[in-house]
């Protein structure tokens, strides 16, 4: 008896409710953009400059007392949050203390760190400081630009690759799906004020890669079916291709999600934001490869004359094993 996540033969019409699915994507995009501009992103120190100190103690965290201890130092905006994680021991109480940048260029001075640590020790003598990270505003400004460039570069590189391997309509469809995925993921980070830092950018780029992975598999089948069924309507070819690859899509997304959820639950709080972005991105990436990328392809139409399969566009790799 086999585990079948998807029946062998499916014949679902993925475009029957096109206005609804596209409308849903559009709505999510709008919400994301609004959340981004109204609420803004909760930037970590990588992008904003400043210092985070991780504290750990056997005694319970008293955020108010911590704040009272630090505020006399006059360090400006201080935020203190307690961290919870299933992997912590019972007597392991962790908090993150964040202090805004103190200087226009440099990271924090050793004296300031010492002052903060001393102040917290008066509240809780058992407190330790497993990590102290500080980024000067000069670097954080550059990191923001590098991050934006890398996401744009990834999208551009992918656009060119797909254009070379398929047709431009495929490239536009794939990139629409990518922009959709990245924008909505950023929107979720804004909406729930999840900390957005360098590793989130890494997650976004991985989403770009993954979302594409999915889209390309569907497109590859579309290209094949377009050659095979020369007179079938484009909508039917797309539906057929998505149905044929459905069991693979669900299977791959399923195993990847399985691995990521294990990491999300058990991987510790340090990388939780990173893994969350990736998990969310894979769900939305799978959705978008069908409902955004293929929908765009349907709207844009595609050249049906594949009489010269090895022309400039759409070269296929020769199978070395054949």
């Amino acid at each position, binding site marked *: 008896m086999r585990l079948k996540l998807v029946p062998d033969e499916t014949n679902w019409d993925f475009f029957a409710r096109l206005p609804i699915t596209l409308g849903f994507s559009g709505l999510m995009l709008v919400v994301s953009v609004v959340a981004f501009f109204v609420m803004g992103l909760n930037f970590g120190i990588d992008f904003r400059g400043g210092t985070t100190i991780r504290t750990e103690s056997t005694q319970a965290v008293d955020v108010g007392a911590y704040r009272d201890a630090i505020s006399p130092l006059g360090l400006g905006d201080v935020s203190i949050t307690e961290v919870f994680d299933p992997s912590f021991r019972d007597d392991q109480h962790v908090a993150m203390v964040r202090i805004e940048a103190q200087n226009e260029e440099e990271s924090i001075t050793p004296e300031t760190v010492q002052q903060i640590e001393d102040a917290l020790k008066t509240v809780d003598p058992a407190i330790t400081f497993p990590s102290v990270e500080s*980024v000067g505003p000069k670097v954080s400004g550059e990191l923001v630009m590098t991050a934006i460039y890398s996401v744009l570069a990834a999208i551009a590189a992918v656009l060119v690759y797909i254009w070379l391997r398929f047709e431009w309509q495929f490239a536009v469809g794939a990139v629409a799906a990518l922009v959709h995925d990245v924008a909505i993921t950023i929107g979720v980070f804004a909406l729930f004020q999840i900390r957005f830092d360098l*590793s989130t950018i890494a997650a976004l780029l991985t989403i770009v*890669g993954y979302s594409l992975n999915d889209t390309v598999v569907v497109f590859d089948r579309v290209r094949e079916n377009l050659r095979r069924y020369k007179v079938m309507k484009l909508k039917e070819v797309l539906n057929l291709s998505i149905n044929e690859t459905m069991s693979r899509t669900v299977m791959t997304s399923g195993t990847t999600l399985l691995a990521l959820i294990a990491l999300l639950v058990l991987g510790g709080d340090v990388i939780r934001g990173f893994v969350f972005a990736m998990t969310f991105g894979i769900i939305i990436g799978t959705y978008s490869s069908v409902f955004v990328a293929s929908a765009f392809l349907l709207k844009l139409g595609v050249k049906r004359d594949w009489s010269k399969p090895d022309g400039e566009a759409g070269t296929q790799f020769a199978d070395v094993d054949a």
Partner: protein
Amino acid sequence: MLHYPLWRRIIVIGLVVLGLVYAAPNLFYGRVETHNDAATAIEKFGATAEREADLSAWPGWLPSSLVNLGLDLRGGAHLLAEVKVEDVYAHRMDALWPEVRDALRDERDAVGAIRRIDAPEGQLKVRIETPAGMPVALETVRALASPVVTLTGVGSNDIEVAGEGDTITVQLSDAEQLATDDRTIQQSLEIIRRRVDEVGTREPVIQRQGERRILIQVPGLGSAEELKALIGTTAQLTFNPVVSRTGDPGTRPGARQVIYPSMDEEGIYYVLEETPVVTGEELTNAQPSFDQNGRPAVNFQFNVSGARKFGEYTAENVGAPFAIVLDGEVISAPRINEPIPGGSGIITGNFTVEESTNLAVLLRAGALPAEMTFLEERTIGPELGADSIEAGKIASIVAFAGVLIVMVASYGWFGMLANVALVLNVGMVFGLLSAIGATLTLPGIAGIVLTIGMAVDANVLVFERIREELRAGRGPARAIELGYEKALSAIIDANITTFITAVILFIMGSGPVKGFAVTLALGILTSVFAAIYVTRLLIVMWFERRRPKQIEV
């Protein structure tokens, strides 16, 4: 009949075995690390019985390279420093001034009296008494220039000399500034390396980043503050003539003079000539020692030119005080009792033994050529790293087990074969990471977990194709062959696009993000290899033994 040529079988099996052999040391991390540390220690300091014992913890003929653990996993200190290269321009101008002065003095008839006037940092401005003598003055100063010796700066001189009215302005040329920047960074790198090595930690990373930045990562060091203290001290030692001694910090020093506080006498300040007689750069050696009263001190020795300058100065100024200045503080200002010709001397101050030892280390390593500002610093405690490794391990095992079960449940025997390939695949990722000496970071572990999830993708693509071909009524052998053939273009396109993003991450990213990019990229390479070649080989070998009439995928 499925065809799989013998030579290809040998290559595939050979590569897998090679990967696993390279991965093997990581299973015995602690033991191999002891072995490697002992090997380094023996090479550096010679063998002892204890080191030999440590060395034999791991057989020498086996590969012993390990996956480096990143700072976030091992704990340690990270600093990003920016070198103020402009400092050096100012030093160069100061050093040029005596030459310019002497050269212009020889032309006194034409230019009249000369005087150095205040100028922006990095420039030297000289006023001459007779503006009519400007052409002669310019020619004289230009004669001091020497050609720049770099590939790009061919044909240009190291200094630019301009005259306006009665003022001559000298500054470094653009080509020379570039060359100087480069030298400054190289020197800083070298000095930081020497200082960090003196502390003797394992595998520090000290590398240039961009034009004028230096990244320093030292695993196992307590905090970034310690690291800062170690490398942030410029240890700029100079010997300056003393003009006066005062208790008033508001004293205005004269032209080309500076006022520095005393290190051990509170409230005492010294007004000094700004141009030093000799600098710490001309030291050849410095050792901690004790003075005649048994207090900690530092002995030093000048090189030949330093010794000559020091000897001449002390001979001319017997009875006058001179100051020993370290990083803008006067350590001591002894009176010159007699000429000191040998070029060696002793620095006494209010040192503890530890301070005198550190000072000697800093002086020996040399002064940083320019000041550094710290743009980024991170300290990660070893316990946090250990917790992260533990959490990462558990998560990876759970993820791995989950994926294995789903594969067998979905594809039966074929899923089993894919699982074997998956296990080999993870082994090969570690083998590659060790072989290229890559660094594993926490996001890197996430990269591996992600690879586990995605590695099955290629197999899934193939298996689903085989299923389709079977449903279309093809025989087992033909279905398998067609399955691989038809899935290939999807596998390649899908993985190349992910690979592109991994490469971009690698180029643009830094630190942990880079670590993620490396594992992701290597994971893609090995998983495609595993799916296309290894799983296929396993299926072919099974098929040849069993020759099933029909198969179920």
